[in-house]
């Protein structure tokens, strides 16, 4: 007999916080570090209450110096700690790019495998909150270019709750991208939810006629698009990548070999994007299975605008995804 697991209702923000709390409880080497994570409670209120619970040694406010504190986190990781570094947004992470790319991602190679940097770096990404062109971009695709790190994009409560612990067990750097539009998303989660794998893409909706491949904040728009397509008798399958590096080619190709058509939804800019990489892999690995051109729904190639209507127009939305799917099926 199994007891039915009870569920609790919580937000994505709560799920991330629970993941951090759980890690802080389970491993004394874990600590959280970043701008305003302590007394302010985090710029998206993720770490609210953690300072009172764990104290300033483990919830560390830092100066406004991304390169400095990310480097400090990498150093701590190399010295045996398991730091969680929070960067406010991916835009600001560019100040720490030297540390991430030139140090964290390369140290195992440069040290001849004597050192690793088991650091987890969390950051917010994406548009939709009217934060304008210096706080709203989706640059996770850039990070997915870098060998030596893993790049995760939790889109569900389960993954927000479960990816962090698995990432902390990884001997090398892991970057976790939290889409800003997901923090307020509320749903049910098993009370005993815990660690999840960080390697496999997930089929969030099975379907037969077209694969809609996406991740992060676009997952929910894509699921809405799938519902809209179903109303027009188009049976779509929705793939949540979950891990952007490495990409789970097997799950993508299994889906595309079944449906023979694909649309990739990626909030990054189209040129040189993650969507381009996925498209190329499909062509490389499943060309003879394809029954139509591969479609892409990406952000317009502009700095993300401030006005709401322009911001909404700049990023992937349900009608664009529906239109792209229909075009790939020749039903436009």
């Amino acid at each position: 007999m199994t007891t039915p697991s009870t569920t609790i209702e919580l937000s994505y923000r709560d799920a991330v916080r629970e993941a951090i709390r759980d890690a802080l409880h389970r491993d004394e080497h874990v600590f959280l570090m970043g701008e305003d994570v302590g007394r302010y409670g985090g710029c998206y209120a993720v770490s609210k209450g953690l300072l009172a619970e764990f104290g300033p040694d483990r919830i560390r406010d830092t100066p406004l110096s991304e390169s400095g504190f990310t480097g400090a986190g990498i150093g701590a990781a190399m010295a045996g700690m398991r730091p969680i570094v929070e960067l406010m947004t991916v835009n600001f992470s560019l100040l720490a790019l030297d540390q991430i790319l030139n140090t964290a991602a390369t140290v195992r190679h440069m040290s001849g495998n004597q050192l690793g940097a088991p650091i987890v770096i969390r950051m917010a990404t994406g548009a939709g909150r009217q934060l304008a062109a210096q706080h709203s971009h989706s640059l996770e695709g850039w990070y997915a270019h870098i060998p030596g790190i893993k790049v995760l994009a939790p889109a569900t409560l389960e993954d927000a709750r479960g990816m962090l612990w698995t990432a902390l067990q990884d001997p090398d750097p892991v970057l976790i991208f939290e889409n800003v539009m997901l923090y307020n998303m509320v749903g049910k989660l098993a009370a005993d939810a815990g660690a999840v794998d960080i390697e496999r893409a997930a089929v969030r909706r099975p379907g037969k006629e077209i694969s809609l491949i996406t991740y992060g904040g676009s997952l929910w728009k894509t699921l809405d698009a799938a519902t809209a397509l179903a109303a027009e008798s188009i049976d779509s399958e929705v793939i949540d990548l979950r891990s952007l590096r490495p990409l789970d080619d097997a799950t993508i190709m299994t889906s595309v070999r079944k449906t023979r058509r694909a649309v990739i939804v990626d909030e990054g800019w189209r040129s040189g994007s993650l969507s381009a990489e996925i498209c190329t892999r499909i062509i490389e690995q499943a060309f003879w299975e394809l029954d139509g051109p591969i479609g892409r729904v990406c952000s317009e190639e502009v700095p993300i605008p401030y006005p709401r209507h322009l911001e909404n127009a700049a990023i992937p939305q349900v009608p664009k995804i529906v239109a792209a799917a229909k075009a790939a099926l020749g039903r436009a």
Partner: protein
Amino acid sequence: MEAGTLVEWLVKPGDRIKRGDIVAVVETQKGAIEIEIFETGQVEQILVDIHSKVPVGTPLAWIRTELEAKAGLAAPKPVAQPAAIAEAPPRGLPQVARPPPLTDIVLGEAGRVRVSPAARRLAQERGIDLATVAGSGPAGAIVRADIERSLGVLTEKKRPVGLDLDAMRAAIAAAMARSKREIPHYYLEHRVDVTACEQWLTRTNATRPPDERLLMGALMLKSVALAARRFPAFNGFYRDGKYEPASAVHVGMAITIRGGGLAAPALHDADRLALDELMARMRDLVQRVRAGRIRSSEIADATITVSSLGERGVEALYGIIYPPQVAIVGFGKIVARPWLVDGAIGPRSIVAITLAADHRVSDGHAGALFLAEIGGQLQEPDKL
């Protein structure tokens, strides 16, 4: 033409066959082709089953020739049955039918049809000719469902053996487009008095029953055949960047097919046939082509083509060369014209004979002599 579907076996293992026998019927885009045999002997083994689509050049059966039988040689063991058309024809094995020269034009160059990769592969696996499939995908592309539909149609109603006019039109389109793209045509016209021919035909036919009468077409065809023998630059094939004159004269005769088809099968050794024999062959050929049954050798072998629009035509026609041939001779309608003969004007029957020839192989001067030779032959019909 790349592949054909074997639709009928007319022999079985153990049957005795002789050179010239028809042993099988293969359906292609050009209609059903009767497969002739070039050996005398005994059918040892059938290698290709009915309804299999195989590439041109695939052995269809093993034949034990009389010589082999005497020597007690066993038939070679087949390696594997070549079923998939993707596979190259096996090399070094005896070939039953010679591959036709037009190997690559039908599928590859017909205006580039959009086909999804999945549809293309399925069509290849199942031997579906893409030229016969209508697309329903993005921008009219052929998608997998279209192939499946056409497979369903094919298995539902067994198509009668014979002509597929749509496929034939696609083949004509491909051949003509290739010709105009690759061959630098030049055109000449020569007006010839054929009054002597008409008078000779009237005399000759006066005592014959209708089915033995000769037609002007036979004289025209023979005159071209004789001229082609004397002018090898117009009788042969231009292939892989060089010209090979043919050793025999096989004149392709353009035959219109009701419903919009056109074929130009060969009359073998037309230069050596007596007029009566030539006429009989022409009648037989027209009848068989219109019934959709052409022999493989007739499709492949023509070394030059003759096109005549006959009495319902216009005064002159300028043909498009059928690659890899290098010349096509056209005959317009015979018209009565005032003509200067021996210093006096009188009514004569005049025909415009045209030449479209490949400038890579010959020049206008040679073309003019060639046309003049045809005209000269037609002045002495009793010698044809």
